């Protein structure tokens, strides 16, 4: 943890406060401009091959009571973060929310955690400093890795060298909040298999899939945390490992793949840093539901809406996804990863994954 980065981050925050100060002095209405964070304002960055924010901006301005409250909260948060950096402490997003209760000014307190989370994201974007550099952590730390990887992690209690198969239990290696403190030492893995659900991850580990196929099994735990996405990106960039994503076969899971591969809408300002554009989708594909005759549930109304909204999401506007989504709308079914168990517990490791990975040219 370099104090230089901290110092820089702190200066960026104070500059932001100074900007408000100057606006007051000039008789202007205090405001800050942010890119609009909706799917209508993300565009593909050809160089980086990720989706980033477009040119549309929205302004937080003290013109309205709501806007003024937001800015007041922003200034209080800036003060808190600057102090935190100065004292080399860190806190979680949730702690920030509760901490605001202790602020002397009622107007500055957050109404809910979404508000404080959103505000931290705002500050990331405006200051160009990542949340991690503000020393802000999410509650649930990153997920786990299991596979033939040897690494060194800088912890507050000194450096630790860990092998992610030999030095860990069944649970695997816990990804720290800031994966940039990790140094990769050695890797025997051939590819990365990112898995959505814990059940499936445990199944793969139990069946020894990581050993058999030299796979790094990354547990996504639903919508992946930033740390998970960041380490995936680094493993891909630094070790040249192909990345595959294995999720349920429903619209929400496609979004999990989307955020691994293309970046999420909420953190599109960090896409270059978090997204792995080369990540490939294994399944469950709508085509698999048909091909393997998997047990399925009918699509609910909200599933259909989600699928339709994905059709208009620029990130999914590829031939592959359009075909798959339209197929799913046609068959009106969705299946979970665990549905593969209907063919036996080993079906997934013996048949499904090898067939899919082979078809994708990974093995």
């Amino acid at each position: 943890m370099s104090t230089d980065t901290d110092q820089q981050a702190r200066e960026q925050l104070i500059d932001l406060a100074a900007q408000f100060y100057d606006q007051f002095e000039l008789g202007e209405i205090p405001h800050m401009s942010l890119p609009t964070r909706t799917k209508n304002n993300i565009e593909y960055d050809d160089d980086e091959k990720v989706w980033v924010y477009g040119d549309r901006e929205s302004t937080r301005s003290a013109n309205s009571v709501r806007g003024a409250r937001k800015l007041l909260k922003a200034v209080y948060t800036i003060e808190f973060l600057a102090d935190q950096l100065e004292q080399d402490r860190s806190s979680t997003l949730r702690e920030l929310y509760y901490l605001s209760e202790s602020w002397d000014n009622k107007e500055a307190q957050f109404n809910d955690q979404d508000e404080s989370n959103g505000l931290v994201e705002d500050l990331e974007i405006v200051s160009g400093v990542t949340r991690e550099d503000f020393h802000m952590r999410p509650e649930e730390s990153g997920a786990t890795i299991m596979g033939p990887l040897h690494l060194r992690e800088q912890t507050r209690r000194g450096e630790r060298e860990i092998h992610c198969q030999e030095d860990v239990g069944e649970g695997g290696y816990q990804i720290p909040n800031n994966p940039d403190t990790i140094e990769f030492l050695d890797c025997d893995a051939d590819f990365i298999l990112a898995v959505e659900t814990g059940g499936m991850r445990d199944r793969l580990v139990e069946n020894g899939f990581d050993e058999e196929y030299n796979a790094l099994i990354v547990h996504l735990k639903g919508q992946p945390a930033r740390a998970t996405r960041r380490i995936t990106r680094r493993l891909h960039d630094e070790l040249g490992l192909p990345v595959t994503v294995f999720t349920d076969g429903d619209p929400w899971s496609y979004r999990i793949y989307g955020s691994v591969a293309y970046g999420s809408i909420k953190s599109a300002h960090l896409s270059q840093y978090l997204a792995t554009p080369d990540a490939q989708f294994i399944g469950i594909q709508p085509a698999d539901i048909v091909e393997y005759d998997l047990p399925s549930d009918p699509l609910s109304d909200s599933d259909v809406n989600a699928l339709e909204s994905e059709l208009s999401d620029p990130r999914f506007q590829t031939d592959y996804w359009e075909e798959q989504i339209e197929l799913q709308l046609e068959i009106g079914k969705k299946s979970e990863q665990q549905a593969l168990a209907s063919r036996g517990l080993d079906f997934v490791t013996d048949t499904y994954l090898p067939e899919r990975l082979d078809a994708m040219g990974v093995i």
Partner: protein
Amino acid sequence: MTSFQSTLGEEPGIAEELAENQQAISIAEFFEKNKHMLGFDSGARGLVTAVKEAVDNALDAAEEAGILPDIYVEIQEAGDYYTLIVEDNGPGLTKESLPKVFGKLLYGSRFHVREQNRGQQGIGISAAVLYSQLTSGKPAKITSRTQGEHEAQYFELIVDTDENEPEISVERTTSWDRPHGTRIELEMEANMRARNQLHDYIKHTAVVNPHARLELREPEAHFKFERATDQLPEETEEIRPHPHGVELGTVLKMLAATDSHSVSGFLQEEFTRVGKKTSESIIDAFRDRHYGREMRWRPPAATEDIDLRTVVAEATANKGQDATSAFADAIADGVDERDRIAHHELLAVVADAAEDAEAEHGTTFGETVRENAVEAVWLALVDVAEDDEDRESADSRLVDEIYALADEATSTRKDDAVVYAFAERLAGTFADVTEADVRHRLTQTALREAVDRAADLTEEYDDVAFGDTARENVVETIWDVMATVPDEPPLVRELSDDRDAASDLVDAMRETDIMAPPTRCLSPISADLIEAGLRKEFDADFYASSSRDAEVHGGDPFVVEAGIAYGGDLEAEGTVDVLRFANRVPLVYQRGACATTDVVKSIGWRNYGLDQPGGSGLPNGPAVVMVHVASTNVPFTSESKDAVANVPEMEDEIELAIREAARELKSFLNKRRSMQKRRKKQNVLGKILPEMATKVAEVTGRDEPDIDDAIARIMNNVLVEREVEANGDAKAVSVVVENNSSTSEHLEITDIVTAEPTALPDDVTVVEMDGEWFVKWDPEVGSGDEATLEYEVATDASFDLSVKGVETEKLTVKQ
């Protein structure tokens, strides 16, 4: 079976026997038994009504004499009875008239007069006397003194109900401290349960009579309402009835009574707003109604096989060839000249031709010759040629013309054949009429019947719809083509005996456009004084008033005025108060039966910013709605004059008057709401922004920034800012107005300076007072614009800016 009829037959004396029991009853006796009709149905109410009648009388009396009214009302408790005393400073009553005014019902000077007065029938005060004598058995005690008399007259009297005449028990002179006026003392069985209504009555009377001084003393309260103005209401004048509002019976009575002989004279003499022109319009309308119009036919076209010259020549015998052909030519040309011609027009054409021919050729064209010519030409025009029996009706001129008119009147979608068939049938009517009345004279009703018959037949035989609209259009088109006849209207004496003709005249009067009646017979309060009255009695935030132009109902002009007071100390809970007035008299009872209340309920008050549960009924909120109806004859629902009857014309005007005032209320409330919102926003931002500024200063380690400009901008406010700069020894002062609002603002800025300002621009005035200079500047600053006033002062000075013309919520002043 025994029938009742046969029993009656057996006892021939019964009708006579019954008749013996029938006798006339006096009006006084009638009201003795029907006290409620006059508002004396209970002790509580009786007292209020008695006060009301006495005060109304007193106000009328004083105003008529041009005296500013000063009225004293006292109510004393006397065991189970109450004594009511009302004193006024009116002109007093003569010894002769006094007993009748108080002791005879229906005695008064106003019943036959079209002029706005509080009292109308001459019932009120004598009914109070009657009520008092019925309940207490005591006579009324009346004192009156006319101007200049040394002594006052004192009477004690009761109403003799059998005869409806006053019965005087005491009559003497007395001394009285008022120089002129009347005092009445009545003792009656009563109670003060209606105390609120009594107070309301007095208070509301004060609202609409700002020129009167009123005092009320009752056992538990004592009020005085001083005058708000010394201006008496304008004196009213009597007017004649307006033609739009009289009924047949009235007209018949007027016809019998008038001195005029002709209808035209009658109309001009007896009615208001009728001059020569209007009376002609009325008489024309009367002719159309009474005589009908004559159908006008087209003269024959060149293509038609009708030569009028030959027709005339054939009908004219023994007049010499030249004269005959000149006569024939003149008639043919006269007819041809016209677009269409009616029978009476043809008569005129023939008469002219005959006279011209006589003058030129010396031959006499007598009555018979003229008649023959007219008949021949007319029959040719209406197509009844004598020796042309085998002609097909399909070729008839009448059918062709009716067809042309019907085709024009009906929609293009109607089948031509159908219209033609209809035209044939309608033309048949005219052909039939020819035998009865060759002139083709039809009233509109007869025409409509004919059209209906033809249309019904067409529907029946041709199996097509011939709807009401089509029929109406045909009637209208044909009626427009027809000509009003020149017949002289009957004389007045003939009319007065002819109910039907008189009814036609009444209809004609109603139909003709006539200017609204003059309003000098009315004495509206005026919008300004309504507002002043409301201000005097209600402490509110907002007042609005309206006064409509005069309208007519039943020949009586009326004016409706409305006022609204809102907010302030008015009761916010429950429904709004509706104050009703008629001819400056507050209406206290029967609120629910009054047209005024109905109208207030029917208005959608939510539109005007008042809460109205369910969207109808009386609105809620801190408001008073007042309505004043002034008329020469206010239509009350009963003799007690508590409620205005539901007369549509009047309801419309009441609604318009209320809406007019309510619109002002709406804009006031809207503005107030937006100011409230602005104030709320200002309050919140006024707290947040300084805190934000403090925090920003803390974080950046700088001094606190100045945030007034930013706040002014955020609030879309008008910012007035003064800067003083040293300019050598002197100081340069600039006052900058920055308008951040969305509308253009006109400001009145006064800068009070303790040193003499110099180098001022031209549009600024300076006044010096006691070593202080008042710099007055009235800039008009557009939305988003700035204006600057610059001047200099020689030495150090202190300044004080005051800004007007902008609501405080919208203004930020920095100095």
